């Protein structure tokens, strides 16, 4: 595939314009009304400021929306990511402190980092395999297939921690959620790496095209010789892996596994991010768009928190902004709007 800037401009950048406009609008609002929003300092060799907070706090949603984007492009959806987040955190914390739920305060031998990270991620992949198999081979609708794990998964996580919050201290593991690399919080670096990997896999190989083909027309792609079922399973596993990593970040950040609340409703944020970003359900996808979508959501949250909007109206406010973003993105809505404007202008002249 040759690099073609003109094609890129038309296809991909064109899609990104509106989400970017929305993000830009929120940022401009903050420039004017929130003093110090753009202050970036370097404290002990670390970048520090609201903008970094947005990226850092937005990392879990960004990660999950990378996975959600590819699943969405195959014409699927994954509701179970929040539950996978809870499971990953619960397993990691339980490996660090196996007897905590039985009331043992002592740690015992310190678990090696490889196990603490590896086992939860393997389980996440297993969860993805389950989702993917239900969708691709059993033929259950994605929304129902993943609903199963969304409900059961949180229950499993609660079983693991017995409903308690498992707190722990584990220096190497804490680095994932709270450490700094090159002056940046590690979660941001992880997101960047995952983005790069996804970009290379989907845009530098034919995989991206396969995914879009499967989403646009599974039958036709099957006849073309694409193994649609395998592709679907792979996307669900990838999505679950992203959720697993997000779970480790969240768990490591607060140095505790909270199976009741970790990742709760995060699937909704991720789906919103994907849709705001302009990925089509079954077809063309843009991971960059999803990132902008995730950033819009997180910038909004941070804005609400720093500006001090009453908590009772926070959700309504969020909903309003997201409706506006979704509307200006909709071509049909823009046509109606410009049509009206043209009409009134014509009427006036």
């Amino acid at each position, binding site marked *: 595939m040759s690099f073609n800037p003109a094609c890129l401009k038309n296809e991909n950048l064109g899609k990104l314009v509106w989400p970017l406009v929305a993000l830009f609008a929120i940022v401009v609002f903050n420039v004017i009304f*929130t003093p*110090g929003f753009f202050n970036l300092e370097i*404290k002990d060799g670390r970048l520090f*400021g*609201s903008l970094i*907070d947005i990226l850092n*706090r937005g990392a879990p949603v960004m990660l999950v929306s990378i996975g959600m984007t590819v699943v969405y492009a195959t014409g699927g959806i994954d509701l179970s990511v929040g539950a996978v987040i809870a499971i990953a955190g619960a397993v990691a914390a339980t490996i660090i402190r196996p007897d905590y739920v039985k009331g043992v305060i002592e740690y015992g031998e310190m678990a090696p980092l490889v196990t603490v990270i590896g086992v939860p991620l393997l389980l996440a992949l297993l969860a993805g395999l389950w989702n993917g198999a239900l969708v691709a081979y059993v033929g259950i609708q994605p929304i129902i297939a993943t609903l199963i794990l969304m409900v059961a998964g949180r229950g499993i996580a609660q079983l693991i921690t*017995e*409903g*308690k*919050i498992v*707190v722990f201290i584990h220096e190497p593991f804490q680095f994932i959620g*709270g450490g700094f690399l090159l002056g940046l919080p590690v979660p941001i670096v992880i997101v960047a790496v995952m983005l790069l990997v996804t970009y290379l896999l989907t845009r530098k190989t034919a995989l991206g095209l396969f995914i879009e083909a499967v989403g646009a027309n599974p039958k036709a792609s099957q006849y073309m010789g694409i193994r649609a079922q395998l592709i679907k399973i792979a996307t669900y596993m990838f999505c679950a892996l992203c959720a697993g990593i997000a779970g480790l970040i*969240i768990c490591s*950040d*607060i*140095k*505790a596994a*909270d199976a*009741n*609340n*970790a990742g709760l409703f995060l699937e909704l944020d991720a789906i919103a991010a994907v849709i705001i970003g302009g990925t089509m359900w079954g077809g063309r996808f843009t991971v960059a768009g999803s990132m902008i979508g995730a950033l819009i959501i997180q910038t909004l*949250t*941070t804005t609400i*928190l*720093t*500006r*001090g909007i009453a*908590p*009772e109206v*926070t959700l309504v406010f969020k909903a309003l902004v997201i409706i506006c973003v979704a509307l200006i993105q909709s071509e049909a809505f823009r046509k109606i709007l410009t049509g009206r404007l043209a009409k009134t202008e014509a009427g006036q002249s």
Partner: protein
Amino acid sequence: MKHVMKTALKVFALTVAALLVAGAAMAKDKIVVGFSQIGAESAWRVANTESIVSEAKKRPNIELKFSDAQQKQENQIKALRNFIAQGVDVIAFSPVVETGWTPVLKEAKKAGIPVILSDRAVDTEDDTLWVTFMGSDFVEEGRRAANWLADNYDKVKRPDKSSDVINVVELQGTVGSAPAIDRKNGFEEVMKGHPAFKTIKSQSGDFTRSKGKEVMEAFLKAEGDKIDVLYAHNDDMAIGAIQAIEEFGLKPGKDIIIVSVDAVRGAFEAMIEGKLNCTVECSPLLGPQLFDAVEDLAAGKTLPKRIVTKEGVFPADVAAKELPNRKY
């Protein structure tokens, strides 16, 4: 052969009769309490159950019939009907929801069995259907947090900070939940009398660590060193906020004075490290009080309509001594 049978029957009948009498005599000694628990949805609830079951074992005059409703009202109503049919002496329960209890409570009243509500109230017009409601007073918890601050702020504050203008930030619980509303109101009520304390920011942290941390981070970015006091509606949010404060480069418990509610074990660990200043107890350990009330009832005493759980306020200096006693 017939003779043998007859004798055997007689012996059997006599034994049964004797057992029955003995059983009745035993039952007379013991107060039978039927307790219907909501379920085991949180660590707080598990501690609550544990307290009731273990306290019943400690008291020789109490026989506890325990039933777990698994978060379902129908199970709980079934359990209450069973208790009535068995003719227990006292029924106690934590209602899973507020409404829909009138018919079954009427049945209990008709059977002459007093009902005690544990830690949650019911919504019924006829309040003669239950004897007493025992549990925490969330408004009072808010007041206690405020009172501790008003009395002790000068002692614990950083020396260079003013005591005329004190900026408070608040981490609220889940929007609309009873503890969040009441703890906010109780706190504000007392603070009206102390105009130096000014709440400059108040947001919901959903009672969770991660939200508490995220919200505190935003507060710090907006207000920075201007924040003097943090009031968190539960310990978990306070613990999350402590991490945010440390990452911001301030010292929690010194640069920012922190008061929270619940008194869970984690809060005591934080206080021993000097990162939390005070926690107000919201105790799930209702067992002793419950059975005190039951014994009072059996002795023919009238109970007050509202029994507020005995709860303490734990400042940091008693933390090390108190930690081993914490059960939740």
